[in-house]
């Protein structure tokens, strides 16, 4: 059970003066149950890449396999694929349309042809998963706050019970509190259900805390694909492509430079704290 991208290329506006080579020879294997951060600067091709994962875009060349089957085979069931690979777009709250929150979340499962009862059960479970209170269920989605709207939109995808959840910049435009809440919720969801989660972001800080693997995109190709520890060691190169390592990395690097014997690969504040205390011969 996995997604495999095999030499995927994508060109926008092929044969025109304005053609853009958005993906260049992307090869990836996404096994089940991983928590992946997909990082890249604006225009690096990350949004284009994720739209390939559920067959919304067709690669100019190359192939994509889901569970060993080519998703662009003629009689491949794309609808089924889209329920398995749930994609939450950037600013997903812009896709809400129903008269109340609950109905909107029902849209996805209803499209899968499930019974009324099953649909409603799933919608209820999904809304609970994103941590929305019951009192909002029968309100118009347009009366909610930005963060709440986004949860509803994420629930709309979760209600289809995807095996892979792809979130394109789920924290864009949210305040720090809203951002942490959404990310914590996603991490919790990942822990409870064991689904594969791909978190697209341009902020290392956001993903460092949660993910086990980071894919760095630059100008349409994969620059790094490794654990956060290894990727952040390349912090100088990351800066050159318009990204940055988490602040913790910089502090640890600076401390090491001053002669403190710390391991510079700490990625979270908690790890860094441990490292520094250890270096100072103290324990928590």
């Amino acid at each position, binding site marked *: 059970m996995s997604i495999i991208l095999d030499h995927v290329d994508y060109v926008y*506006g092929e044969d025109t003066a304005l053609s853009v080579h958005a993906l260049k020879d992307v090869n990836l294997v996404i096994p089940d149950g991983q928590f992946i951060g997909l990082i890249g600067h604006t225009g690096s091709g990350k949004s284009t890449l994720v*739209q390939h994962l*559920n067959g919304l875009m067709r690669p100019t060349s190359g192939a994509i396999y889901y569970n060993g089957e080519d998703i662009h085979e003629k009689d491949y069931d794309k*609808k089924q694929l889209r329920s398995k690979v749930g994609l939450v777009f950037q600013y*997903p709250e812009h896709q809400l349309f129903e008269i109340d929150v609950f109905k909107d979340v029902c*849209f*996805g499962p209803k*499209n899968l042809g499930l019974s009324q009862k099953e649909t409603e059960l799933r919608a209820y479970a999904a809304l609970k998963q994103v941590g929305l209170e019951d009192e909002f269920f029968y309100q118009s989605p*347009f009366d909610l706050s930005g963060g709440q709207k986004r949860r509803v939109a994420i629930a709309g995808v979760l209600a289809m019970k995807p095996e892979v959840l792809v979130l394109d910049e789920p924290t864009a435009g949210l305040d720090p509190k809203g951002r942490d809440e959404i990310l914590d919720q996603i991490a919790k969801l990942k822990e409870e259900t064991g689904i594969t989660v791909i978190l697209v972001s341009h902020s290392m800080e956001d993903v460092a805390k949660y993910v086990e693997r980071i894919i760095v995109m630059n100008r349409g190709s994969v620059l790094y694909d490794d654990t956060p520890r290894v990727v952040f060691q390349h912090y100088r190169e990351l800066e050159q492509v318009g990204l940055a390592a988490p602040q913790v990395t910089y502090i640890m690097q600076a401390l090491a430079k001053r002669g403190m014997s710390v391991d510079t690969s700490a990625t979270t504040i908690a790890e860094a704290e441990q490292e520094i205390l250890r270096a100072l011969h103290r324990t928590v």
Partner: protein
Amino acid sequence: MIRDITLGQYYQADSVIHRLDPRVKLVATIGFIISLFVVDSWVGYVVAALFLIAMIKLSKVPFRYMVKGMRAIVFILLITVVFNLFLTPGEPLVSVWKLTITKEGLRIAVLMAVRLSFLIVGSSLMTLTTTPNSLTDGMEKLMKPLKYLKVPVHEIAMMMSIALRFIPILLEETDKIMKAQIARGADFESGNLIKKAKAMVPLLVPLFISAFRRANDLAMAMEARCYRGGEHRTKMKPLCYRAADRIAYGVLFLYFAGCVTIGVLL
């Protein structure tokens, strides 16, 4: 899918036609359209075709872009041709069952088809080589005399340029919302007419909301920059004719005079 619509879209290139004053292009397009109705003979259409081909060559816009624009009117074209072909009275050529193709019918059908396609290609040449903004600038300047008749020329031009500016934005938005709903299992393609119309709701509601939101934002931004209509408003880059524009007017005049002569003589 939705990005394929080219009618009324700008094609970026550096050519003589692109650099012309928008007023010249507007007048030329109107002149060309009128010329198509003035001439009524094969010679006239050959002249028009040559003129059009020369302009397309000069504009450096690939020919298939023009043809793409034609796709939108294929249906209208087909109806026109069929009706003219079978319903024009005159000397019968072929007769099958109750349908009769007459000599006059064939002539009119072909001429109408040529006229319509020239019309579309001619006007899409203008929109392909002129940015929407300069087009409305040109219109505003051309329509200036109407101001004395209390026509709000500036306001109309502003509305047009905003409307034109919003076309690509809304297309992109449509594309995005469509994809988002497809990702949620929506189906825009299969089913009968009623089912298809119903399937549009998840697309149209968010689209309207976003259009209103954008309009509101734009109004705010304009007010924040003290926009208050056309009175005493000056332009950063006022339009003025250059040598190339005068030559273009000359060429246009020659073409138009030629067409009128052909129309009168033949």
